[in-house]
Structures are given as structure tokens and as C-alpha cells.
């Protein structure tokens, strides 16, 4: 079955979404991430969506829910790399991703997570 890989970097988990996700794949990623947070005792999750051309309400909700669930499992989530056109569309769609921290790119996202770990 198709899966999105999750990389471990110290106490952080790194996910780079590089395929046009269908809904089932998005839900699988959410489940996998929760399982890995517990298994690796991760304190931070970085989700890189720089390769995503669109984020619709389903994927937006998945990201929002993931951040909420991770928080309950004592892990911070940072979303990075959103394309400007995606951000403009999301707001017009009516989705503002409440509770999700964002950073411009992977480097800044990791800095943000490491700062919250100290």
C-alpha cells in the first residue's frame, strides 16, 4: 500500500508530502504519524508541504487535526513550505488552520521546534 515516509531526526519527525494525496492516503499519514510520535517519543513534528500544489478542506482538516492530536501526545507541529497560491486559496475557501504553527521553510521550522524543546 502507498505510504508517505516519516523520517526521524533526533526527537523530531519529518514528513515531506511529495505526492498529490487522495483522502485515504491523508488519513493513513495521520494514523502513521500518531503511531510514530508514541513509538519514538517524539517532541516535534515538521510537515513540509512545499511540493503540494493544492490543499483543500480535507487535507487542511487532516493537518489541523494532526496538530491537535500531536499536542495531546506532547508533540509540537509546524507546517512549512506552503506555496503563496495555496495560502491565498485556503483563506478564500474559508480555512484558516487554527492551532497550526507555520514557518516559511524547513530550516526555520526546525529552528522553531528546537527552540520549543529547550
Amino acid at each position, binding site marked *: 500500500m502507498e505510504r508517505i515516509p516519516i523520517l526521524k531526526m533526533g526527537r523530531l519527525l519529518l514528513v515531506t508530502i511529495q505526492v*498529490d494525496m487522495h483522502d*485515504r492516503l491523508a488519513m493513513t499519514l495521520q494514523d502513521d504519524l500518531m503511531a510514530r510520535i508514541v513509538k519514538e517519543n517524539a517532541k516535534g513534528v515538521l510537515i513540509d508541504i512545499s511540493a503540494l500544489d493544492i490543499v483543500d*478542506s*480535507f487535507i487542511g*482538516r487532516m493537518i489541523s487535526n494532526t496538530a491537535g492530536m500531536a499536542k495531546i501526545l506532547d508533540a509540537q507541529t509546524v507546517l512549512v513550505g506552503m506555496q503563496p497560491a495555496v495560502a491565498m486559496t485556503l483563506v478564500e475557501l*474559508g480555512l484558516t488552520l487554527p492551532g497550526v504553527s507555520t514557518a516559511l521553510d524547513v530550516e526555520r521550522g526546525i529552528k522553531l521546534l528546537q527552540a520549543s524543546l529547550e
Partner: protein
Amino acid sequence: MSNALPSVVAQAPPLPEIYFLNSPDPLTTELPLKTDEDVVRLRKQLREQLVSIGFSLIEQTKMITAASELARNTLRYGGGGCARILERRDGTRIGIQLDFEDKGPGIPDVQLALTDGYTSGGGLGLGLSGSKRLSDEFYIETEIGKGTLVKIVKWKPF
């Protein structure tokens, strides 16, 4: 027998092809919407057509996002159906029309369904209202027990 009609009637020359300015372009793509993967295929096909007409990146993103929302509705609430991508010409304008058709249960209260945050199926309730905001024209036809047809149009800005 000599008075019998000739067995071969001369064929009229074929009529020249005529395109009317306001008629939809004959270029139509129909795609099934039966699985999650079909939604991804629709997004890809639509992207190609929007690029070929010269839509800007932001316009492409808006229309593909709207298409994704409506395709999901067709799949989840309509029990599957099909999508059509049509090129539209209106005078000097050029645009893309998308039709989403299902033979599902229909929508009992369209006004309510178009309200931000209203959902009958556990979603965020942004699918219909959001895709309406993301497109230039929005039509919906629905009949209880018969199905739903949603059409959106996006015109290329000059």
C-alpha cells in the same frame, strides 16, 4: 424500367463547420468519479487544461481546489458519478466549466447546504460554499432521490 429512378442519389457536399461564439467548445473531457484516485486524476487533467489555456498559477490553484471539493461531494454524498471539463468561449472571453453529476439522494435544502460550516456528513462544511467563492459562476440543480448537478465556471481574466 427506363423510367426507374437512379439508384444512387448524388450526395450533398458536407456543410462547412460552423462555430458560434457563445456555444461551448466541442472539447469536453468526461471523467468518472468512483474512487479517491479518480479525484486525483481529475485534478491532474484539469491542471493540464488550465495550463494549456494560460490560466495563472493562482487561478489554477483556486479552480483545482474548488474541483477537489466538489468531486469529493459527488463521491461521498452522491455515491459517485462523473465530472466533465468543458472549454467555454463567450465573445473574446475564454474559460473552463466543470460539471459534477451524481444520481445520489439529492440535497433537501440547497440554501442550508451552501451555508459555511453546515455539513450533513461530518466534514467541515466548506465544500459547496468554499467552491462557490472560488469560482466565477456557480449553478446547482438537485432533486430528492434523483441526484445533483453542480456546474462552476472560471473565466480567464484579461
